[in-house]
């Protein structure tokens, strides 16, 4: 949807660090959907996903000054915040009754999505181990590039490609 170059993002982040409202607004527009999707695919609950998304953006306002390009690209940094929040969520809700995420299908606006396929994809993702599942979610749900995924997972790009290939191979048999 938003295919901003890294240069543009850098510029926006610099402006946001200075407190530019427009820059913040643009960064929100660019990153809202990937973060929401990532959060939803992690927690499989609409309300929790919304909660995680809002917390991610509010945290971003608080700590954008500390952000540096040395460690992670901006998008990967935001996904990392969402990832950590989802881990916290799982810690809190391990003993709670698991939510039936298929109920959330009503909220999916895209008509192209077949409910059955959606269910099947999520089920097959659950069967993958965490490393493979994370690569698939980061690459195809959150829309991170190979480089960003490598930075996020602290592994090499070659490693990301290998894991991705293996995960797709595993999913091929299930879908």
């Amino acid at each position, binding site marked *: 949807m938003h295919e901003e170059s890294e240069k543009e993002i850098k510029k926006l982040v610099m402006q946001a660090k200075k*407190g530019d409202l427009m820059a913040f607004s643009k960064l929100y527009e660019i990153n809202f959907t990937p973060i*929401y999707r990532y959060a939803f695919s992690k927690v499989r609950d609409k309300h929790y996903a919304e909660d995680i998304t809002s917390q991610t953006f509010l945290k971003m306002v608080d700590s954008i000054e500390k952000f540096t390009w040395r460690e992670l690209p901006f998008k990967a940094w935001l996904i990392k915040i969402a990832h950590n929040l989802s881990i916290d969520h799982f810690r809190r809700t391990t003993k709670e009754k698991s939510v039936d995420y298929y109920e959330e299908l009503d909220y999916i606006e895209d008509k*192209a999505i077949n409910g059955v396929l959606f269910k099947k994809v999520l089920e097959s993702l659950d069967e993958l181990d965490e490393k493979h599942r994370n690569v698939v979610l980061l690459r195809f*749900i959150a829309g991170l590039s190979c480089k960003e995924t490598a930075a996020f997972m602290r592994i090499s790009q070659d490693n990301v490609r290998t894991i*991705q290939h293996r995960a797709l191979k595993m999913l091929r048999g299930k*879908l």
Partner: protein
Amino acid sequence: MKRNNKNIEFILEQMLSGKPKEDFTNDLDNEKFCEVKKALGVVDKLKSLASFNADKNFRDRLKNEFISKVKMKKVSLKSGKTSVIFLRFKKSFAISLAFLLLSLGTALASTNAMPDSPLYPVKKAIEAINKTISYDGRIRALKILNFNYRRVREIKYLQKIGDNKKIPQLMKEINQNIKELKLILAGGNLTNKEELKRKLNNFLKEQYVDGKPTKKESTSKSKNQQVQNTINPLSIPDKTKKVQTPVKKPKKPLPNQNDKPKNFSKDEQAPSKIKPIPKSKIIKNKSPLIKAIPKKTNSSKKEEKRK
């Protein structure tokens, strides 16, 4: 096999990044091509999963919340700008503050430093800076005059401790300063020129420069002037002139207080101002003379009365 897989992974990555298929698939054999195609099929399915969107109301609500938070932060950033800057440069700020305090302390300590003190060079350096940064002629002249007074004080101190080696240097400095002062006074555009001249003259009058007094000492000296001249380190007496030592007048012997008043003749005048000291005082003072006179007892008094 491993190499084969690497090739497929690379091609898959290239295709995912949106590059045209023809660039990579031409070199592939059927088996590899099928594998890549299947992988891409899975990716398409996964991407269909990623095509769901969030609730629009939630999206707008969160945006408003987000923007208001940014606005709040902007306000807090503006109000606490100094503290943020301070935190950001905490280390460098602390170092510079420490350095500043240290240098200020040294500068303050050096103001009263004497030539034998290790802080004396600091004092001299501060004086030099002070002199160079004063562009106004009047202020500069006043400062130089003040420095001259300092030098005089230092010379006095050196004489006191018996270190005469540094005195010529200080003298030279004083002379240079006076020359500079005269130059400043010779220049135009000076406010209160007369006052400055008077001050310089006062200095020259009070302090003897180059071993010669610039003016004769006035007879009506103030107490301070007299004190300064008596301990003036720069005052070197002129050997060509004879020193007039005041002739001591023989003191008149004081009349013995216990002596009985004499009978003065007409030619002689009785000392009018000398009053007889009351007896009570004499007894209290207990001078040796009083001790020599035996005390009169009651019996002796009676005898005197009989006589």
